[in-house]
């Protein structure tokens, strides 16, 4: 009885606090699409750090990291390097995207490509790739979050109901407050998920005598779990490098991160983010300790991603276990709310405003954006209920798919010879290969590489070759970019 009460109180607060924060944020909403989708480009440093970090640390980071350390050896430890790379990309590429976005009033990634390449075809292709590869990733957040709500409630709330609650809360505050509400709630989610990751690791490692004792014992009993390629021999040095490249690139090119580049108030904030985002990677020490403690305490868990909740409910007081699981649900919700919001922007700006109702006013566009939030949430929910097995496979390719957009983005920023034909053919080749390697297991990726990394290499080669073989972009487009680049170099670089 006491257990049920504490579970309801913890989960109740977990749902109620973000709702309040989101609804308070909605009081500041101005009736413009720019304010609803990119917060009027006025986001400050605290909100930027928490919303970027909490958005990019998803259910994969919270549950998946423990599972990797538990079942696959140390390969996930490359995460502390990919956090640094992600932060560096946010400064080096993100600041340029912010600048062009501000100059051209961009709201979505497609706006950026339409402006710099002068190609509606490429802009539409980017919008389609983003929607197709983000929906399954959103569904993965729901599955992880709803599962954690179920275990945190001690089984009181079945995952199908947990999933509905998960989305209902998000829909209410995103509908009301747009990006500002998402960013404010991400501060709450971010604190909870970092606390959950770090505390869980040290708490559970203490059950076996602390960090040093844990690894001394593992060195005797399971040394193969402490070096690459791990106990199953499948995650070696090549996968260490591949994950380091694909994970930050895939997340960085997701529509939710484009929103978080456009929304920033000052270029100076981009200079600070590599340090803050890199430092935040210290939370992975918690995951590393959880996974390795699991090898000692619970060696027979069939689903590796469940090692954290399994150990918490066996070795920690119920209230503490529920609180840490709420931290995991926070990781899922802080990513899902951003994805729903940014996909709504893609539909509203890139499809509805451009092809369905070109004369729609701000009020109408905000209403369409809100309806799109509801529709995308429902699509992800029903997909998770009716075709979960199929989608787990798609979830694995989601990041590799969005990572392909990195090639035309870097191309247009640093190489004048880039053409829209090169970008389109390269992007199609990259996405085709990602799907081929995923859905046709007989086709193996060369040299033990991650399929996403191999696809990016092919994408880059095709992009360069086709760009060299096709005519330059129009002189007008290049001249406009040159002028803006000179301004960037002078005032922001």
């Amino acid at each position, binding site marked *: 009885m006491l257990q049920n009460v504490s579970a309801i109180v913890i989960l109740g607060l977990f749902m109620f606090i973000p709702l309040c924060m989101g609804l308070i944020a909605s009081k500041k909403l101005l009736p413009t699409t720019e304010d609803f989708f990119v917060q009027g480009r006025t986001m400050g440093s605290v909100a930027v750090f928490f919303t970027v970090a909490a958005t990019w640390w998803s259910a994969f980071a919270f549950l998946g990291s423990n599972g990797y350390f538990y079942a696959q050896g*140390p390969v996930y*430890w*490359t995460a502390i390097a990919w956090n640094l790379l992600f932060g560096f990309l946010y400064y080096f590429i993100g600041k340029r995207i912010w600048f062009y976005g501000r100059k051209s009033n961009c709201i979505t990634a497609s706006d950026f490509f339409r402006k710099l390449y002068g190609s509606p075809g490429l802009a539409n292709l980017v919008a389609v790739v983003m929607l197709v590869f983000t929906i399954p990733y959103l569904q993965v957040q729901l599955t992880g979050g709803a599962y954690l709500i179920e275990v945190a409630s001690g089984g009181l709330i079945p995952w199908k109901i947990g999933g509905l609650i998960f989305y209902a809360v998000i829909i209410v505050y995103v509908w009301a407050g747009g990006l500002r509400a998402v960013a404010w709630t991400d501060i709450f989610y971010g604190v909870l998920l970092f606390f959950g990751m770090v505390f869980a690791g040290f708490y559970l490692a203490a059950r076996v005598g602390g960090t040093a004792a844990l690894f001394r014992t593992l060195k005797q009993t399971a040394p193969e779990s402490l070096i690459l390629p791990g106990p199953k021999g499948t995650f070696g040095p090549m996968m260490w490098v591949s994950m*380091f490249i694909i994970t930050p690139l895939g997340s960085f090119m997701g529509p939710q991160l484009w929103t978080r580049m456009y929304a920033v108030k000052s270029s100076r904030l981009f200079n600070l983010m590599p340090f803050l985002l*890199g430092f935040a990677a210290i939370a992975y020490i918690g995951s590393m300790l959880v996974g390795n403690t699991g090898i000692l305490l619970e060696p027979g868990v069939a689903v590796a991603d469940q090692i954290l909740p399994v150990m918490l409910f066996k070795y920690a007081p119920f209230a503490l276990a529920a609180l840490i699981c709420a931290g995991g649900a926070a990781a899922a919700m802080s990513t899902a709310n951003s994805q729903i919001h940014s996909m709504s922007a893609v539909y509203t700006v890139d499809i509805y405003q451009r092809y369905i109702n070109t004369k729609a006013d701000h009020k109408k566009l905000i209403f369409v954006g809100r309806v799109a939030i509801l529709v995308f949430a429902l699509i992800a929910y029903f997909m998770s209920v009716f075709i979960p097995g199929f989608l787990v496979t798609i979830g694995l390719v989601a990041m590799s798919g969005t990572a392909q957009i990195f090639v035309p983005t870097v191309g247009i920023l640093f190489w004048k010879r880039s053409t829209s034909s090169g970008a389109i053919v390269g992007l199609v080749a990259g996405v085709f290969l990602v799907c081929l390697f995923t859905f046709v297991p007989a086709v193996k990726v060369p040299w033990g590489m991650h399929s996403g990394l191999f696809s990016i290499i092919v994408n880059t080669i095709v992009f360069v070759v086709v760009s060299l073989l096709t005519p330059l972009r129009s002189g007008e487009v290049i001249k406009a970019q040159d002028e803006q680049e000179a301004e960037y170099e002078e005032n922001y670089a």
Partner: protein
Amino acid sequence: MRIYPGRILLFLLIFIGFLIMEFFNRIDPMIFGLPFIYSFTLIMWAVMVVFMFIGYKTNWGRG
């Protein structure tokens, strides 16, 4: 339509840092009670965080 020597040096150091992080795939010597692959990568991470902080304080080597 400039080069900044400080920025080039900083980017070079960061690039070398990533290359190093990406014979330390072993357990011994254990530092901080962690297997060597964990502790060595952690030390490199700390060095890289310092580079990122220097980047912030110096406008990434531009001043």
